[in-house]
């Protein structure tokens, strides 16, 4: 594996992202879009939104979009390398934190750190919403689907799968 191999690029990018993704995988989506579409040209805008849609369609953690990007870039090896890089560093941190965290339950630095990171992660998840909506809503009908989903998700407890089914059907029948 030489230095400009796509696997090296995937591994180093997602390992770094893993350590700055405050707020989880969703919070890191704008940066994935920036790198995969704008900087590295791994995929185009539509392939990125398709990957996000597929990741949301599949059961399991939101981090699955990383496997899809990896697969798109370098097949099975790419999917494995990207997923391992996105999970590895943070898993090691989590493992050690599991043993020490509760000791600092009342420490001022811990309380301050937690309070500081809540708004940061909110801003990042908001950025994710913005970037995804802008990429997905290419026309008024798509924007209407997004807005309807927002309203339904906030005011009801209907499973997202129903929303996906209806939205997919509307797309298939040419409303978008």
């Amino acid at each position: 594996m030489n230095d400009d191999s796509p696997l090296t690029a995937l591994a180093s990018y997602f390992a770094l992202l893993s350590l700055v993704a405050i707020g989880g995988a969703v919070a890191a989506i704008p940066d994935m879009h920036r790198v995969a579409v704008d900087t590295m040209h791994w995929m185009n805008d539509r392939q990125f939104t398709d990957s996000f849609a597929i990741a949301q369609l599949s059961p399991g953690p939101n981090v699955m979009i990383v496997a899809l990007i990896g697969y798109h870039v370098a097949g099975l090896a790419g999917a494995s390398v990207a997923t391992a890089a996105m999970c590895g560093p943070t898993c090691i941190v989590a493992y050690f934190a599991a043993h020490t965290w509760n000791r600092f339950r009342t420490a001022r630095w811990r309380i301050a750190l937690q309070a500081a990171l809540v708004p940061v992660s909110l801003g990042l998840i908001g950025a994710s919403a913005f970037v995804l909506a802008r990429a997905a809503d290419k026309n008024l009908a798509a924007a209407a689907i997004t807005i309807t989903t927002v309203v339904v998700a906030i005011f009801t407890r209907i499973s997202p799968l129903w929303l996906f089914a209806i939205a997919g059907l509307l797309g298939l029948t040419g409303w978008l």
Partner: protein
Amino acid sequence: MTDLAEPDSAVVRPSLLELFLAFAHVALSGFGGALPWARRMIVERKRWMTAEEFNEDFALSQFLPGPNVVNFSVVFGARIAGAAGAAVAFVGLMGPPLVIVTILAVLYRHYGDLEALSRILSGIGAAAAGLIVAMTIKMALPLFHRRIGWPAVIAIIAFIGVAIMRWPLPLVLVVLAPFAFALAWFYPAGTVKR
């Protein structure tokens, strides 16, 4: 790690196999994120943890960088059975969904250019984006509910830096996090409890 596991008569200890199966089940039943399912499984059905313990580990998993539910699997697995427990919970959580998503990736590679599939996915993509918008609104409500304090300002700066300016996330974080920490240290009243 014995200091972590407070003996509690209501709480039972799973075996490694049970741990694996539970996290695989959580992973496969959760659409659009798996954490709510983890709570249902671990606290309500299996009683492997009290609600308070879960909240504590949940807060830690959210606060750590990286995928939240992945962090949770490692934290919980380590609590139950050290490194082996962490590894087993992680593999249970990630293994089965990875197989499914890989199959979908292969299908997309072959059929992604089909007009019909592309239309379906553009509909789903619009709905999926709506879910993230809804998630943002739910999270933002407590922050903008009362008098706007520094947390709202920090959130807005993070949003503008990443969404509008398209600055790299590592850069935004390295600059913003120390600021936010200093504000939280000196003005704890501006903090918002979840």
